[in-house]
């Protein structure tokens, strides 16, 4: 590249001396303060690199030792302090009181939605839609332990069959086949009777045989006509909602080998205010009683 600085005959301007294929670049000088601004930016960035983590190198944390993660606890604490007055009111109130107060209810529903997504949705699904294999829907009108505020809160607090609380819900259903209480034919007959409760029996003789077996083995918990028992956590057998599937094979499996869903106890894991918010939120999902 030639570097012959000369005067351009057309414009009377000096060239930079740069020439490409006969095209010469005119020198239109930048103001010097522009250059100094550029230097100032470089100086600023150097200071920044020294003070803050700016290099993709482990350990290059900067002299101030600032990290986004390190700054988080203070932000969280500030946020917690900001909502604390409301949380205190939520702690002091019962779910019924919260639901009756529009301000508290709005806060509880918003907070409950977040707490549910963080803690509950893993099993119960987004919006409490439930999941196959023993994770009940919380949006429908069928409750194993009851759909009132108190019943919902009790389950959240103490859990189900997790052996984490003395007041936990859920008792064990016997595995009738494994324990030898019923043989394979008897299990099948009992299942035929259970299906007949929702009008789906296929073998009248088996249903009749199963009725006696049901009365002897099942009715004490599930009720004479399969109406269920919330105190014991025995699900209804006379409706359309089946936690583990409602076809015959699934019912046979339940009778033969038992089912025992487990839910942890959240008391002590969650702030009481959050338990209250979750109670109100779950109650409002659509099935609250």
């Amino acid at each position: 590249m030639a570097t012959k600085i000369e005067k351009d005959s057309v414009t009377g301007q000096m060239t930079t001396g740069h020439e490409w294929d006969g095209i010469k670049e005119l020198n239109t000088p930048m103001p010097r303060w522009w250059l100094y601004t550029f230097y100032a930016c470089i100086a600023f960035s150097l200071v920044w690199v020294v003070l803050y983590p700016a290099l993709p190198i482990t350990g290059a944390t900067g002299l101030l030792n600032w990290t986004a993660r390190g700054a988080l606890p203070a932000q969280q604490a500030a946020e917690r302090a900001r909502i604390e007055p409301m949380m205190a009111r939520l702690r002091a109130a019962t779910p019924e009181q919260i639901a009756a107060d529009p301000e508290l209810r709005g806060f509880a529903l918003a907070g409950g939605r977040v707490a549910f997504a963080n803690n509950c949705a893993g099993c119960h699904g987004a919006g409490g839609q439930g999941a196959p294999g023993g994770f009940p829907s919380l949006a429908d009108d069928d409750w194993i332990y009851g759909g009132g505020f108190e019943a919902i809160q009790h389950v959240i607090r103490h859990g189900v069959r997790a052996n984490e609380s003395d007041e936990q819900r859920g008792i064990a259903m016997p595995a009738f086949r494994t324990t030898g209480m019923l043989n394979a034919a008897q299990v099948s007959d009992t299942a035929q009777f259970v299906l007949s409760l929702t009008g789906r029996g296929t073998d009248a003789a088996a249903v009749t045989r199963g009725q006696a077996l049901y009365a002897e083995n099942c009715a004490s918990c599930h009720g004479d006509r399969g109406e269920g028992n919330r105190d014991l956590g025995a699900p209804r057998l006379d409706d359309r909602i089946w936690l583990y599937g409602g076809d015959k094979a699934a019912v046979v499996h339940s009778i033969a080998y038992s089912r025992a869903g487990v839910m942890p106890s959240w008391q002590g894991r969650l702030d009481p205010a959050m338990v209250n918010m979750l109670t109100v939120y779950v109650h409002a999902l659509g099935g609250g009683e």
Partner: protein
Amino acid sequence: MSVIQPTPPPVEEASLYASHQKVYPRVVKGVVRRVKWAVLILLLGLYYIVPWLRWDRGPNAPDQAVLVDMGHARLFFFWFELWPQEIYFLTGVLVLAAIGLFAVTSLFGRVWCGFTCPQTVWTDLFMWIERKIEGDRNARIKLDQGPKDRAWWRAKTVKHAAWLAIAMATGGAWIMYFNDAPTVTWAMLTGQAGLTVYGFFALFTATTYVLAGAAREQVCTYMCPWPRFQGAMLDENSLVVTYRDWRGEPRGKPNDPAAADCVDCKACVHVCPTGIDIRDGQQLECIGCGLCVDACDDVMQRLDRPKGLIAFETLKNLAASQAATKGMAAGAERLAKGMAVRTPQKILRPRTLLYAGVLSAAAMVMLGAWLLRETLTLTVLRDRAPLYVQLSDGGLRNGFTLKLAQKLRGELALPLVLEGPPGLRLLVQDAALDAEGRPLLTTREDGITQWRALVTAPEGMRLRGSTPITFRLLDAQGRTILRQSSVFLGPDR
């Protein structure tokens, strides 16, 4: 065989950077200057006074006529009130302003730059103060070249104090567009305003002080993008500040018989706020303020020569005059001939028609959008999880979130009805019922209320797949005022 020539050494070193040449504009009187003063007083007056205008909107609403309320996400402009989701109206205004700027530039050149741009207006004000304190051009040059004695220190201190005061008033007024003016003024004076307020106050004080006091023409020449692309708007039919070289050349002393009208007094150069010589022709640095027109007219008048040696003129006329007077000797005859071939500015041309078309189309769209703007809106959000809920009796239920936005003052209670296959039942959580058992949705003035609606299809309806339904909001007379369609979902089979 080719011979590689040795590279010759550079003949001279030219710096890629230029030192700042301070411009000392001289005072000027004339028509253009008077127009510029009027525009300055009008614009600065608007800027400083508008935040103090009051506008009664009733209780629970700010009474400031023009207010951008960031905290509550509302923009108030006299009788208009915009929500954030309507920010496209502001976008529309900016689009109209941009096209309007293009149109005006294609007709009258850089009038925006020369007369109305904040950079020009505040610089003009700062220069006026500078002149009042340090004197006119020659006095200022002398002051800067002279010793830094007591007079120098006094002049500079007073000048910068006055500049800073104006800059602070400017930064302070800016804050008032975003806060209640009397409240924030009192808070700032008593030291009770927040860090954000003081921060922006300091920022706009600093920018005003630096840009109008120190940077001045550097902003227009080096920082502003507008001079870079204005070339696409200007053509030979645009009015631009022009030196009529066909009349002025050759330059010479007033009593020189061979010389033409330009007496080379450099008045045009001395009054120029960007420090250029308009006689060199069209230049990037020229902001089209026309002060050289005033300066030259003044000189011509004193020499008893016709005004208009420098004038707002189209390049088309300039070329026509140049062609008509080519080879003629200086004198009255050449002047008459050059002026005679001029034609009136062509206003209607493809460029201006295009700008006018786009401008009116954009204006129509924005006007239509404004007239069709709804002050009460209903939004229906279907639950995405669960899509539907199986009920114990075999029925199905869908959940919806309804959002009712009321952009006006006043509260309403409106019955909600559901349109769909007969048998669907509608329940709105927490909603009171009217005499006919329909849920009443209440509004919040200038706010949004949110409702959860549960729609149940009882056992026996056997709704499968997707069924269209419509939520309708009725007024007191039972007329539908809002309708929102959605679907009721069930299992596929």
